[in-house]
């Protein structure tokens, strides 16, 4: 009897959810996980020492304050070794009332007025209206393997590695092999005469803090569900290794976004990365992968993200393919195939 009642309730609930378009269920699911991420240790936001009109002005002020920057050697430079994962950040609070990672993707968040310029605010409101209607943003540029670029790089939740050298810092994200190169003590260079997903980054050391100025970035998103950035977007970051409240290694990044096309005035946020020795212990190593060859998602005619599935003519075998299947030793997945029963 109890089983019958439970089943009846379940069937009724399923019918009701289907009738409601399941928007609320989706919101709950996304919200539950994001809330957990939002609970990770957060660093305090430190605003720039004064208001600057441009990233250049901000960067040059810090450079002068650091007397041209600390000249590190390979023996003195900060070592941020190991694997790192993206942690909490305050970026959603710039654009949403009481914004956190827990509210960034979920329905119910209210757009802050007057932060974005009129066309960018209008676009952002439309994006949030879609989240209200469908439970989430239906299409994301990553669907088509478009690079997330910066500032989204700061948040992308894949695994990262950092290599500091006296003349360059490399910031490597597993996500689509996006490696940021920071040219220490250098000037901005753009011999290609165009923008790119990660732009051009220069920097200097102020003791153990790495200061970076990035420009010539492709227009993209702060992250899915958040506003667009324009092709005039620039940012100044200050990176520093600290220990969080539980004593774990943490990279803290104070960022100021400059975007005269998208933002009414510059905005600041703090991002964190958490050291992840557990991932190394589990055997995680960053491998090369190419989204174009391993992803079967696409944007359909109605603007939704969809998949090509096995049997569809457009479907790509995510393991790769060989032009020489008749030859022995050409399988791209010999370990799994050898395990056939």
């Amino acid at each position, binding site marked *: 009897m109890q089983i019958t009642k439970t089943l009846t309730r379940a069937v009724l609930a399923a019918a009701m959810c289907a009738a409601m378009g399941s928007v609320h269920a989706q919101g709950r699911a996304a919200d539950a996980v994001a809330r957990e991420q939002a609970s990770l240790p957060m660093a305090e936001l430190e605003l720039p020492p004064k208001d600057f009109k441009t990233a250049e002005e901000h960067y040059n002020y810090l450079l002068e304050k650091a007397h041209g920057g600390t000249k590190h050697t390979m023996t003195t430079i900060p070592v941020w070794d190991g694997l790192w994962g993206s942690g909490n950040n305050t970026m959603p609070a710039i654009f949403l009332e009481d914004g956190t990672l827990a509210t960034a993707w979920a329905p119910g968040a209210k757009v802050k007025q007057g932060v974005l310029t009129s066309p960018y605010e209008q676009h952002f409101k439309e994006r949030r209206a879609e989240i209200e209607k469908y439970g989430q943003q239906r299409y994301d540029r990553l669907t088509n393997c478009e690079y997330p670029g910066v500032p989204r790089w700061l948040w992308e939740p894949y695994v990262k590695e950092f290599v500091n050298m006296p003349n360059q810092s490399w910031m490597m994200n597993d996500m689509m092999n996006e490696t940021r190169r920071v040219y220490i003590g250098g000037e901005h260079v753009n011999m290609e005469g165009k923008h790119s997903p990660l732009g051009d980054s220069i920097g200097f050391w102020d003791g153990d803090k790495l200061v970076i100025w990035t420009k010539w970035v492709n227009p993209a998103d702060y992250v899915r569900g958040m506003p667009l950035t324009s092709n005039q977007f620039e940012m100044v970051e200050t990176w520093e290794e600290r220990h969080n409240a539980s004593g774990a290694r943490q990279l803290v990044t104070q960022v100021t976004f400059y975007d005269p096309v998208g933002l009414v005035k510059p905005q600041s946020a703090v991002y964190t990365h958490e050291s992840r020795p557990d991932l190394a212990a589990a055997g995680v190593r960053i491998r090369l992968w190419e989204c174009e060859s391993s992803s079967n998602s696409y944007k359909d005619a109605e603007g*939704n993200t969809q998949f090509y*599935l096995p049997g569809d003519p457009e479907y790509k075998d995510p393991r790769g393919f060989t032009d020489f299947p008749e030859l022995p030793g050409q399988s791209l997945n010999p370990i799994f195939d050898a395990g056939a029963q």
Partner: protein
Amino acid sequence: MNKTTFAATAALLAVAGYIAGPADAHHSFAMFDLSQHRLVEGQVSEWNYNNPHSWLLVEAPDANGEMKTWSFEGAAVVHAARQGVNGTTYRKGEKVRVVMSPLRDGRNAGALCFVVKEDGSFTRPNDGICNSEEMIARWQDKGWLEGHHLDTHPTADE
């Protein structure tokens, strides 16, 4: 893994702070009907432990009883790894029971939530959109894991 062992493991993971899945992923999840979960029983034909997402392919009957390839999207490599899943977790030909949120368009695919292996152990290669620990407990509590291929149940009681 029995229910008690699973709960204890989940608690330990929660204490370690590594229980949260990724809130973001490579794409939106709006194509899935996340209000429900469906049981699919079949045999593994491919396990693509891949970025930007893993995919488990299973041979199983469709609603008309015809054998078809079912495709289930899971987490990226690093996210699956921190949930204890790696590239050798599933073997070709292995019998599995998959609980997933189906595609809204009715094709034989869905967002993977958790997988019950032939020995009864639970594996969680899911992306952040499914709270697999909560869902395993729910399916155990409701007795739904004793059900049949293509049984479908709501994600929440409301």
